[in-house]
């Protein structure tokens, strides 16, 4: 489904993404994890052709994302508020998005039905513009709008952010079921290791723009590996700090 070749993106001197070769297959549910600044959102923007790569290319179903817009027909994404038209009500926004994919209002209403529990009675019929919703409800609107046209490729950046625990649980279930029912490729990024391990059979660990581990996660087998990795990172940093402090103390 997605092939990444020699992809490189720099911001000034800093290398944000540097991936030699990576393939995501149709039906994969991939979790992208990494510390802040690891390059997760940048990678998503590159996949969605919202940023220009300095080198390399990304293809979705053999279509180079820079050369054609055909892949947009079967791709849905939500990264941040920059995807939301915030002077519309949620209903208007959903109908607008639906129309972009050739759906009428009745079809949109039908597509919204499975999200009823996720919306928890706080999104529809509120007579409010999106800009006046809470961050959590904006997140819900963004996720639903990305899934409305049943895309074959779904990309969500930090989908659990701002959501209450119940909604996090519901969206985990929805995403897993969606991937299975539609054989869709789902890519999510998250700082929440538990959620990622719970729903993603494959997890890519990104650090400094490089995919340093591609982990097959069977029966939550990745949990320990990830926990060890992130704990070690913290311990390493603490050790480094201590060394620095000792050196300074000696100098003084």
């Amino acid at each position, binding site marked *: 489904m997605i092939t990444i070749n020699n992809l490189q993106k720099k911001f000034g001197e800093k290398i944000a993404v540097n991936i030699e070769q990576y393939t995501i297959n149709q039906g994969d549910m991939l979790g992208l994890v990494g510390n802040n600044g690891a390059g997760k959102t940048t990678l998503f923007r590159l996949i*969605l*052709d*919202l*940023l*220009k790569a300095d080198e390399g290319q990304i293809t979705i179903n053999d279509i180079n994302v820079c050369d054609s*817009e*055909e892949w*947009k*027909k079967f*791709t849905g*994404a939500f*990264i*941040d508020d*920059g*995807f*939301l*038209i*915030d*002077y*519309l*009500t949620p209903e*208007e926004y959903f109908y*607008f*998005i639906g*129309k*972009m994919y050739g759906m009428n209002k009745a079809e949109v209403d039908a597509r919204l039905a499975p999200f009823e529990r996720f919306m928890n009675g706080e999104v529809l019929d509120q*007579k*409010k*513009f999106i*800009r*006046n919703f809470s961050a959590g409800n904006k997140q819900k609107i963004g996720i639903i709008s990305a899934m409305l046209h049943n895309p074959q490729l779904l990309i969500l950046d930090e989908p659990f952010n701002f959501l209450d625990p119940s909604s996090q649980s519901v969206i985990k279930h929805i995403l897993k079921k969606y991937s299975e029912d539609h054989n869709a490729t789902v890519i999510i990024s998250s700082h929440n290791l538990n959620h990622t391990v719970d729903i993603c059979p494959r997890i890519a660990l990104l650090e400094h723009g490089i995919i340093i581990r591609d982990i097959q996660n069977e029966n939550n087998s990745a949990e320990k590996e990830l926990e060890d990795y992130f704990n070690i990172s913290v311990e390493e940093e603490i050790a480094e700090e201590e060394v620095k402090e000792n050196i300074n103390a000696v100098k003084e």
Partner: protein
Amino acid sequence: MAIFWAGYLIFFGTTFAFAFDGGAQEAYQVLNSGLIFVLAIDFIIRFPFQKTPTQEVKPYMLLPIKRNRLIDLLLLRSGLDAFNLIWLFFFVPFSILTITKFYGIMGVFSYCLGIWLLIVFNNYWFLLCRTLIGERIWWIILPLSVYGGIAAGMLIPAKSPIFSYSATLGEGLITGSILTFLGILLAIACIGFINRRLMSNLVYAEINKVEDTKVKNISEYKFLDRYGEIGEYMRLELKLLLRNKVCKYSLRMVILLVLVFSSLISFTSVYDGEGMKNFLVVYNFVIFGILFLSSIMSYEGNYIDGLMSRKESIYNLLRAKYTVYSIAILIPFILMIPAMITKKVAVMSCVSWAVFSVGFVYFCLFQMAVYNNRTINLSVRMTGRNVGTGLQNLIAGASFGVPLILNVVLKALIGQETASWVLIIIGLSFILTSNLWIKNVYHRFMKRRYKNMEGFRDSRQ
């Protein structure tokens, strides 16, 4: 935008200097007797542009600075704001043309300094009223009764003392009367003190204010359903214009200006001269496009990622915009009907400018879709952050200037009626080929998309 305001004021300053010249009174005496009107206009135009210190204080509240000191600083900043100098674009050329010959350059300097002080006083008077109105809407009665009272005092008596008082004040400014200046400074100090007391008391009420976010009537514009995806984008454009402060204020202001100019042409003889009349007619038709299309795509910068992740959405958006603003040309056309009825402006002339604007002028302005890459914040009114870029101002100026020059040249060469036909032919050729050049704009936008998206993201607030 700022350049436009400055341009208007310079234009009116020089026009008034010549218009009031040669009467029983000198031009500056006429203007001085109506200084209150200037202050009233200044008061009104502050509403979309200016925030009160109580609205601005929030980010500073956690700093280790006393609340009263913060209010003092914000009040001082407001008094020294460059916005208070904008009227000098009117008064400097006016006073150079009318005062220099009697009082020399010192008279001009003293007069302009005094006018600035009056505007500073007006600034604090506005802040006082705006703060009170923000607290309780009924406080709007205060400025209404003050200005209404002054207007009644001026217009009802056969010989109003207010005119002569105003003229004496202006005379005092020109001659550099110490008493006059001291009086104004005292008035500024008093109103500044009242503001300080009021704002110190209201600052927490303002910070804790919550806007009612429920929408009472949600417009559907169902008639657009039949136009498919383009209709959907037209609906989006209408909602953009009518639901966001920055667009709503621009729309109201432009309708007001067109209405004023149209009325001046229709019912007064002030602009009976051919040159001025043409200027205002061109202005009325071009201003809609300039105001909304010179910043084309900058509003969409707020949600550009969402648009760009859908196929050809930008192309359809551009087509929808063209349709909406082409239909919107009917607004100035309708507002110009009184001028057509009173035969001040020929029907043919209005038709030709409407067609020319929709064709050629929009073609020029749509090119900005390729280059605009600064997001305009939709939730603020008009502030300094939303002023146009240099290129926007250049294109906007050209969109206004080129038609004016073209009209003068064509009229001189082939006469008014044939010139109108030429304008119609030029306009129609661009209208009929609009699909082609919009497609071209879209392709060029897509070539620059990375640069533009980066700019939109960086300038989003």
